[in-house]
């Protein structure tokens, strides 16, 4: 038992059980303690794994499924038969003739509902006349077998009745029990109906390639810009002075504030008609007429890149600053003695040490900028040459109401993501602890 204890508990860092104790042979298979530990670990992880599977893995599978389905926004509600019931003829006294009318229709304009069956309990005190041949009456229970409804089909069933005493006593009103109606409709999401039209549609034409190009430009420049500005800001704050904490807090504002708030602020600031930025530029003589910052190519793309840089430089700055503050200062003193100039010190001493964190940040930010949706959606809505892949998902699914095409774009994004993550795990080791 004692020989096994170190294997069951956490092994102290740096030394393993094997080196401290000359164990003759490692035990084969897994001993009971290890099995217990593994069981406990999976038990602890189970809620997370279950939740993540439900909300991440299943939707991912669903995206692949939907992407090969001809499904639009309207198909999300499956077709159902609809019925309304009323009493016509304005009966006023016992013995009056009236008509009990059921109006039925198919809620979908193009899909078939098969095996429609109408059931209803007729109110008491009505003398039923001749009923429709498709209906059968059993006491007060009426069942009508109406067969299949084509898309957009409408139907009316009329039953002549004569008012009896009991019905007149009840106030000449139909009771509040709605008639029952059932029918089978095929749901396009679960049917065996597949198509590659979604992919054909999104890859078709120049639009897709321009979207891909915009995405790449946005991602590359947004990422590099945020890194460069972050590096600059980190260099500024890498010395202690009064107010350093305040400035550091202030510089994080763009990242911490809700994206919707800052995006709308930018829109108002750069508004072509009454924005302060335009007023300022005109007053300073930079331009003669108002510039439509978010409405013309290629300025809109430059603006959304600037927004991305503005919003995410704080993040790079935090990471780079943390790394800088862990660099040994002795080295700089030595370099100073050797006559290295400040720029040489930065280039030959600081940069090599920052290269690790910079490349990690670059890859991660690259992936995240690639995935970014909110910023562009809020700033331009994907207009004026700023439609990236992520905005295109929304655009296809909700603006064009073609869920299938939106899912196809999402599949393309996911494929790109897989490539990026492969690169990430391939080239980024755990050294930076990220």
């Amino acid at each position: 038992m004692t020989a096994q204890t170190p294997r069951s508990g956490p092994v102290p860092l740096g030394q393993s059980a094997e080196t401290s104790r000359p164990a003759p042979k490692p035990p084969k298979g897994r001993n009971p303690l290890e099995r217990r530990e593994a069981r406990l670990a999976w038990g602890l992880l189970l809620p997370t794994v279950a939740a993540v599977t439900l909300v991440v893995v299943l939707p991912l599978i669903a995206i692949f499924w939907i992407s090969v389905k001809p499904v639009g926004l309207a198909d999300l509600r499956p077709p159902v038969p609809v019925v309304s019931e009323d009493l016509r003829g304005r009966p006023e006294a016992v013995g009056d003739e009236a008509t009990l009318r059921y109006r039925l229709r198919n809620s979908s304009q193009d899909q078939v509902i098969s095996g429609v069956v109408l059931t209803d309990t007729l109110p008491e005190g009505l003398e039923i006349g001749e009923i429709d041949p498709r209906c059968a009456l059993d006491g007060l229970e009426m069942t009508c077998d109406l067969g299949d409804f084509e898309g957009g089909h409408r139907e009316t069933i009329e039953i002549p009745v004569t008012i009896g005493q009991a019905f007149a006593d009840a106030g000449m009103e139909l009771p509040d029990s709605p008639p029952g109606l059932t029918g089978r409709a095929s749901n396009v999401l679960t049917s065996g109906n597949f198509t590659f039209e979604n992919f054909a549609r999104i890859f078709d034409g120049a639009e897709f390639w321009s979207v891909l190009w915009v995405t790449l430009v946005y991602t590359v420049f947004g990422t590099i810009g945020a890194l460069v500005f972050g590096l600059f800001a980190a260099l500024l704050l890498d010395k202690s002075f009064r107010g350093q904490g305040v400035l550091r807090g202030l510089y994080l504002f763009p990242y911490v504030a809700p994206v919707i708030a800052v995006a709308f602020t930018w829109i108002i600031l750069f508004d072509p008609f009454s924005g302060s930025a335009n007023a300022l530029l005109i007053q300073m003589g930079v331009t003669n007429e108002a510039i439509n910052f978010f409405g013309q190519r290629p300025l809109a793309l430059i603006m959304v890149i600037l927004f991305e840089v503005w919003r995410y430089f704080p993040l790079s700055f935090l990471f780079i600053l943390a790394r800088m503050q862990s660099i040994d200062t002795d080295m700089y003193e030595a370099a100073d003695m050797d006559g290295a100039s400040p720029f040489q010190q930065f280039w030959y001493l600081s940069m090599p040490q920052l290269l690790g964190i910079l490349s990690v940040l670059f890859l991660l930010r690259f992936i995240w900028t690639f995935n970014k949706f909110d910023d562009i959606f809020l700033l331009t809505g994907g207009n004026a040459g700023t439609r990236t892949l992520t905005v295109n998902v929304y655009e296809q699914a909700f603006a064009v109401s073609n869920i299938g095409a939106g899912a196809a774009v999402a599949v393309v994004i996911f494929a790109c993501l897989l490539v990026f993550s492969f690169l990430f795990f391939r080239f980024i080791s755990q050294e930076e602890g990220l």
Partner: protein
Amino acid sequence: MSMFRHGYVAGPLLGLLWALVIATTTAVVFSFATGGAYRPGGVGAGLLGAGLGALAVAMPRLAGPVGLILGALLAVTPVAAVVTGPDVALWTALLVGGVAGAAIGWPIASMMQGCRPGPLTRHEFEAAVIRFLTGFGYIFFTAIVAIPFYVMVMTSLKNQSELIQNPLDFSIDLSKGWGLFRSYAELFGQFNFGSYLWTSFLVSVLTVIITLIFAIPGAYAVARLRFAGRAAISRSILLIYMVPMIVLALPIYIAFSMLGLRNSIFGIVLIYPVTTIPVALYMLQGYFRGLPAEIEEAGLMDGLSRLKVIWQITLPLSMPALASVSLYVFMIAWNEFLLAFMLLDDPSKFTLTRGIAALNSSEIPRQHLMAGSVIATVPILALFLGLERFMTKGLTAGSVKG
């Protein structure tokens, strides 16, 4: 490069550049503060800066006072550093000129510190350039961060006609008293923002709690326990962390439509934690790994079960990490926009971000939009400033997400 390394070349050159920076800054600051017409005078600022730069090399002590006086005097001439419009009062013009001159003079003197009138060594020259860049950096970053937030707050305090009349005028008419906050009163009164605020708060807090309940055991298992598949789990956490929300939002939207969970706070509370669990788990497991395992082993030896060890030893030790993670998760939930936008249509169930999105229509004046933005921004910034230490740590610990 060597031709620049001379006191009388570097001084005026840096002075010129610095003067342009300061003139622009002063013009923008005064425009935004008073709404008057100010613009940087290129030639005037350049000449003043070059002169002061040369003076800073020759007689460093004089640069500041001379800048102040000269700046004020030149303000009324055509070669002013900051050109003022005709509607600006004389004393304001003098003040602006003086401020600009002083803000050029003193800093340039300290930038050129240690630079002789003659040739400079590379070290001296680069030190001066770096001091210039540092000064520029502070002004630049402070401006780009502060201006949008300043505009946000000030716009929310104005009314439509004032905004159209002069978009640059952000001065506040204090005589209006509480009338300044009319937009806020209308948002809380007519637009139901009080309830949005409460919904957002409730959703965020619930998200934090649920996330922690899920992430703590999971992070502990990944960090401490040994089992087959540990490396795979650890990697898939990172991988899931990278799946874009918009890809998941589509199926979630469909599923929620079918299950009738759209338009319900319950649905939102169901979905938010799942987006934050991987992040929280990743951040926490990093922290758990850093804790000494010996303490936990001691607990195990003394007869505690694993779960008791987590509860009585690990958790109390990781309070700072829990605070960071909670803050970070709170921030994500509070700022979340996409899911709220897609899943909530009923105005009685909006979160704050969804409420602001609903304000973005041509019928609603934009001071309301900005007031809404301020309402959403202030709580999270206040929380952040109050607990900045935790937040900074939390952000660096694992939030590469955005």
